[in-house]
């Protein structure tokens, strides 16, 4: 039982950190920002965010689509998209999409 629980914890944590698009991710602690997409539209005056939260690698909830993030700020022309990811030992994970545009 002890091995099963430990295995479950490790697999869950790895699954959580494994969803990071960045080539670098930490098992114990992750706090990264990275670029996701750039368009040819000029400048940005609005920023919208959307996020997903994960718990113990077992439960993940949220909507981190670019469309949702853009809608939160009323963005109709996207300039570029970034994302950031935080993970604390895989126990608590936040994945945030950040959309810049007009």
């Amino acid at each position, binding site marked *: 039982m002890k091995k099963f629980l430990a295995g479950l914890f490790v697999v869950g944590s790895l699954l959580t950190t494994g969803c990071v698009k960045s080539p670098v991710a930490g098992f114990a602690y992750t706090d990264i920002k990275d670029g996701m997409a750039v368009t040819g539209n000029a400048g940005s*005056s609005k920023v919208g965010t959307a996020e997903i939260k994960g718990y113990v690698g077992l439960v993940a909830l949220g909507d981190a689509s670019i469309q949702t993030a853009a*809608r*939160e*700020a009323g963005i109709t022309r996207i300039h570029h998209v970034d994302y950031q990811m*935080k993970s*604390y030992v895989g126990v*608590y994970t936040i994945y945030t999409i*950040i959309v810049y545009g007009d």
Partner: protein
Amino acid sequence: MTDQRQPGCQPGCQPGCQPKGLIGRRIGLQIGLQIGRRIGRWIGLQIGRWIGLQIGRRIGWRSLSVVFCCVGTLLTVSGQEIRSHYVSKAEADGTIYHTFPVTLFENSEAGDLTFDITYKEHREGRATLNFTCRMANADAVDSVRFESGGIVMAGPVARIYLEPEKRGWKHRYTFDLDASRLCGFFDERQQPEVTLYISGVPWIYRVKRSAWRSYAPIGYRIFEMIRVNELR
């Protein structure tokens, strides 16, 4: 905007009136809330205690406490810095700053109010505050008033979207404000409040004290940093 009628009043009633059944509904709501909270807390405690005991027996209290200490330390350290609460991007026409959404205000009937702030340099000191609230119906908010101590930021709002949910409607609005007042607004000693006006009827959102005490210094430091950077 100065109409002080209670939420739920019928159109045409006088300021200060108590709509029929409102007092009873509020008392019922409060009693229900208290009972629900206590039952929920007790159940949560029992489940938490049982899970803690089971995990503690199987994994061992020493290793478990080490994991919790690590997570606690990381959360505390990251909570004290402002870097995790905003993003900034240098662009050709000035740097754009954005604070992540934060929930600091609540209304006992309507629920929480979540807001985020975007500021771009060289735009005559104007910032954009977007906020989300939930209402029982789709009546649009006309204007908003953020007040903290002597600092008042008020004005009309523009609707971003309204979306039906399981219960009621999710409202999302944007509001243009003077960014120079934001440093003064984020004063942890104050008890700020937000008032939404729907057809002239005020809906008051009170501050969540503990959330405000932890976030106000961060908000202050973010907008102080923006001010200093723009002066350069």
